[in-house]
């Protein structure tokens, strides 16, 4: 592709998404410096591989796919922090299994909609599998359609639907443990399990 055409597509369709790509990567890796580095790498990769992008389609989903692949394939392999988080995730899951009320707590809490849950949500999201966390971010923070997520994740639509459902369930279960410990159980509901 000629240089001017590459630059034109990049400037018109890619560049505007740098903030949202940074936000996505920040939520994936949990710190600003690494997110900024990964954002740079994502855009360099996008520029180099721009021949693979069909102009006028969905630049945001394409960039998220590059960003997600960079995070999982490069960052995770290089970072020892990934191993630490994995250990924490295993420990947390073991705690979850011992917790007899896990999955049964109704999170309806008066005033909680206004309360600051940000630390707990970040912590609960860190305990999700990388793919699940990526899907939650795309679906629930950035309003990606299931079709866009399928494209970004390189998975079929049915897999996205079932994984999104499971990821939300896992996130809410983890938040419910926090809510129970912090606020007490307001109500209990058998989820039919």
């Amino acid at each position, binding site marked *: 592709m000629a*240089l001017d055409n590459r630059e034109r597509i*990049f400037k018109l369709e890619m*560049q505007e998404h*740098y*903030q949202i790509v*940074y*936000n996505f990567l*920040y*939520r994936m890796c949990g710190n*600003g410096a690494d997110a*900024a580095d990964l*954002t*740079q790498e994502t*855009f*360099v990769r996008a*520029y*180099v591989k721009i021949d693979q992008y069909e102009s006028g389609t969905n630049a945001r989903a394409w960039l998220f796919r590059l960003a997600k692949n960079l995070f999982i394939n490069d960052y995770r392999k290089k970072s020892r922090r990934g191993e630490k988080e994995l250990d924490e995730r295993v420990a947390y899951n073991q705690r979850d299994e011992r917790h007899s009320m896990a999955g049964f707590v*109704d*999170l*309806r*809490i*008066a*005033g*909680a*909609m*206004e309360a*600051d*849950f*940000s630390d707990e*949500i*970040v912590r609960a999201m860190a305990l999700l599998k990388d793919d699940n966390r990526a899907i*939650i971010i795309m679906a*629930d*923070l950035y*309003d990606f359609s299931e079709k866009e997520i399928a494209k970004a994740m390189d998975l079929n639509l049915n897999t996205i639907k079932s994984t999104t*459902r499971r990821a*939300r*369930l896992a996130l*809410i279960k983890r*938040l*419910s443990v926090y809510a129970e410990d912090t606020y007490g159980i*307001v*109500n209990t*509901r*058998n*989820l*039919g*399990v």
Partner: protein
Amino acid sequence: MSSPNSRKPGQNRNRQLPEVADREAAVPTEECLDLSIDPQSEEVKNLDTYQVFLKRNLKPLTAPVDLLASIQARLAEVDAQKA
């Protein structure tokens, strides 16, 4: 003479008796967080509420001010290598 605490007709008619209040939660005055899951489908019942809750707690972050300039500098390096 009536006692200052005696109830006049019609007063506190809507007040719940304690034993009823124990069984039925009062309507909360603050906005309620309902993240309940449908037991059949395992879907979040109130998806909008859940998404607003997440967005309120995970607000957009501002990228470093020099990030775009850094990206453009990296792209210039790529172009220079190709030239």
